């Protein structure tokens, strides 16, 4: 039996489980709130076309609209100015081989519960490696904060001085890209960067360094608490939007 056939068999028997890491796309789900002078990402909206009625007697369907970065979504390298000139940097040109990759999950849920401005540092990553081994090249690194267990205002956690949510500092991102060659960085919060990352140098380092090196981002994920620290296989294929900077998507984790 080929390894793929064995994999399929394990899926059928439930030896391999599929865990959904996706938040439900709904109008109320918070989107990133930029200062009002900037353009804004559209929230998810849905308009009914017909529902077994005079507009369509036997069928129900909707039109929906949203931004590329609404809900659980994928960030392509072109999203950030640092990645704008890279080859194959859009949702339609990224090699599909990238859409399935293993993940390492760094659990910072305890620290994040205590401090919404928790910062992922190189030290925290190294401490995780001391316990779980070195992060293999080509893996996703997911920052588990249990932020997805929050909702509404608690989830966005916007104060007068902006959002307060966990994220990495510039050094940690550079470490992951350059020292560990990760495929991307994934989080439960609205952005891969910390809520206060506008004050970092450079601002928004997860976006700046990841996309500057052609790596990806996954945001607004859930169920990271159901993943092992290592070894989960992530399926995360964005919509094939021409020239797209990202897209809402269904993120699945295969756990053996």
């Amino acid at each position: 039996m080929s390894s793929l056939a064995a994999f399929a068999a394990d899926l059928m028997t439930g030896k391999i489980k599929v865990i959904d890491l996706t938040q439900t796309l709904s109008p109320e789900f918070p989107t990133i709130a930029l200062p009002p002078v900037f353009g804004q990402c559209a929230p998810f909206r849905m308009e009914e076309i017909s529902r077994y009625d005079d507009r369509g007697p036997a069928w129900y369907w909707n039109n929906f609209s949203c931004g590329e970065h609404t809900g659980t979504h994928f960030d392509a390298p072109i999203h950030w100015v640092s990645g704008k000139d890279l080859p194959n940097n859009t949702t339609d040109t990224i090699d599909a081989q990238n859409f399935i990759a293993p993940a390492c999950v760094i659990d910072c849920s305890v620290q994040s519960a205590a401090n919404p401005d928790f910062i992922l540092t190189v030290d925290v990553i190294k401490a995780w490696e001391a316990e779980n081994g070195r992060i293999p090249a080509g893996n996703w690194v997911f920052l588990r904060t249990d932020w997805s267990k929050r909702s509404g205002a608690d989830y966005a956690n916007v104060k007068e001085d902006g959002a307060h949510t966990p994220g990495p500092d510039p050094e940690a991102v550079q470490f992951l890209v350059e020292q560990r060659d990760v495929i991307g960085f994934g989080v439960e919060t609205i952005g891969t960067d910390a809520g206060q990352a506008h004050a970092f140098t450079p601002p928004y380092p997860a976006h700046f360094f990841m996309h500057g090196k052609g790596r990806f981002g996954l945001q607004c994920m859930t169920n990271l608490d159901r993943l092992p620290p290592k070894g989960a296989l992530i399926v995360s294929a964005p919509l094939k939007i021409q020239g797209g900077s990202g897209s809402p998507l269904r993120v699945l984790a295969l756990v053996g």
Partner: protein
Amino acid sequence: MSGTLPPRKPSDPLAVPAAPLAPPAGRSRAALGLAAAAARGRFALQCCGGCGAAQYPPRDLCHRCLGPDLVWRDVANGGTVLAMTTTRISADPYFRQHTPWRSGLVQLDCGPSAVAHLHRDVAGGERVRMRLHLDKSGQGVMLALPAVDTPDMDADPMLRQMTCDPRGRRVLVTDGRTAFGRAMAQTMLDAGAAQVFCGIADAWKPGPTPPGEAVDLDLTDTASVRRLAAEFGGRIDIVIDTALHIRPGGLLERGDIVRAREEMELAFFGPLRLAQALGPVLRGRAGDGTHAACAWVNILSIAALAPMPGYTTNAAAQAAALSLSTGLRAELRPLKVVTALVGPLDDAWHQAVPPPKVAPAQLAAAVLRALKGGREEIVVGDIAQDVMNRWIDNPATLARDLASG
């Protein structure tokens, strides 16, 4: 004869509700001038440009000199009651709901005699103050009020049919987040509103707590609007859409339609969603006694008449909203649809605009006056009034006038 406003009674769940009827609406084209005057709170009659005679009922030529030059002019609003009656048997279903109904013949100080609805405190044979009001059909009608104010005169059931006093009624203010929405809510509470609901969009964003009761409402989200209608539709008598979204930006300089689309979402699609979700419910409750659902207020920019420099796409959205508001008026009868055209707001988006600008309390007070006066068209602020005056003077030159600064 005065009495206070009866308290709102809990509705009998088994009783068939009073149907939302309206009085006879058919009018000649000339008589529509009465509605136009009433909508603006004016007491105007047709006057002959040739001989100066005021005439009533409206005609197509001067009854004195057959001159064709008839203009609607404000006239003295005094009068004397010559005769009065109390109708107890009416042929019309609306009036059957409201009998006994008092009317009289009034000798107007400006000349003609007019049949008028009589306020309950008008006893007969005396001096009265005349007003033109919009009735539940949206037609302009004559009202005779006591020459001097009487105690609690606003509680007259006839007057309550002609006005939209928030007193005792339940009000929805669509945007409780802005200073304008909060001032509106507070003004309605101060005016005796039984309850004020304040819509909050994106409750996950921090913001000030509005007066009254905060409710989730995002006009850009159909599902949110429908949820609000389902939960509160039966408890809203007056809707005030304060979600005025004005952002500067010319048509060419923006280079995209994202912000223009946002403007259309809030100015046009938002009210459209709200009207589709709430309109039928409110209209169904428009016959519901002295506390019936009665008014729908749209706050729009005066730029709806013509674009102001630097706010081009916004003006286009406001023009669409004005057209929607006018269309809604016809479909929502017997409710009144009040269109408030406002000048530049005193908010963060008009920092570069020189004064005078409209303050939150000023707008709220103007809307309250319109509701209590039963008016359907108001203009708020000196700038808006200036633009309106130019528009009345010559609609064809207004846009060029404004474009040249």
